[in-house]
């Protein structure tokens, strides 16, 4: 039990802030590049931590630290799009 709690705390302490953002209208590689560019400072590695799903029109972010939903919306807007829904996946 102690080990379980210890591992749980470790996991919580080192887990990133994962968020999924719905972004309608993303159709091409330029959309991907725009998301990576505008979330570059919020993640450790844009190539791994900014996942754009062009089928589902979502951007999944592994953030270094939690940022406000307003900031997420602004960064998506700077990439040329609108965030229609924001869903925090952990923490």
């Amino acid at each position: 039990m102690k080990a379980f709690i210890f591992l749980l705390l470790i996991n919580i302490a080192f887990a990133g802030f994962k968020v999924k953002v719905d972004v309608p209208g993303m159709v091409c590689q330029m959309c991907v590049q725009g998301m990576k560019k505008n979330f570059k400072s919020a993640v450790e590695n844009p190539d791994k931590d900014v996942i754009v799903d062009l089928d589902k029109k979502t951007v999944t972010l592994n953030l270094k630290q939690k940022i406000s939903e307003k900031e997420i919306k602004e960064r998506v807007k700077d990439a040329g799009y609108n965030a229609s829904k924001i869903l925090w996946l952990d923490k």
Partner: protein
Amino acid sequence: MRLITYLVLSCFFVFAHPVIYKGGWVYQGSFMPQMNEIRMGYTASPKYSFVYNADYFENMDNYQDHTVGMNFLLKRWLQNDSQGNLYSGIHGGYYSDDINDGEVGHLFFMGDWESREHYTMLKTKGYFYDGKDRYSVTARYGFAPFVAGMDELQTWLILQTMYFQYQSKEVVVTPMIRFFYKNVLWEIGHSTRGQSYLTLMVHY
């Protein structure tokens, strides 16, 4: 009056990647045997960008120019599976040809609509210099034979038609293939007039 007519006609047309994402740079070169275009742009806001253009048209008395200016995203329509854009741009600079040299102005309007399977574009651009107003109209339709995901090679088969006043005096049709991988786009084509076409574009 001719300028007004041009502006009215231009409202029906559209242009590609004049404005990208905030902080983004674009380097683009388009090359044909008798005409070359080079463009560099910095998008300061998702609504506008600053650009430098260099053009060379052999059939227009060896016309060449260097201009700077701004491009604008006038309107973007976002649907879940597609997007449409309306752009404009105005540039000014210096030109020279075999006859004269002096100031030149560019004005363009461009619209596009694309999904992951289809792509259309319509663009008109005017060149105003030495009391002349010359324009080009370009239309494109493309389709993707397969749908690619993030960081995969996107492939498009495109048919381009272009009319350039005083350049060819006819509509030039150019089938081409476009590849888009990560931040690099390139297009290779061959026109019905037997001219090869190459475009390279890098975003970062």
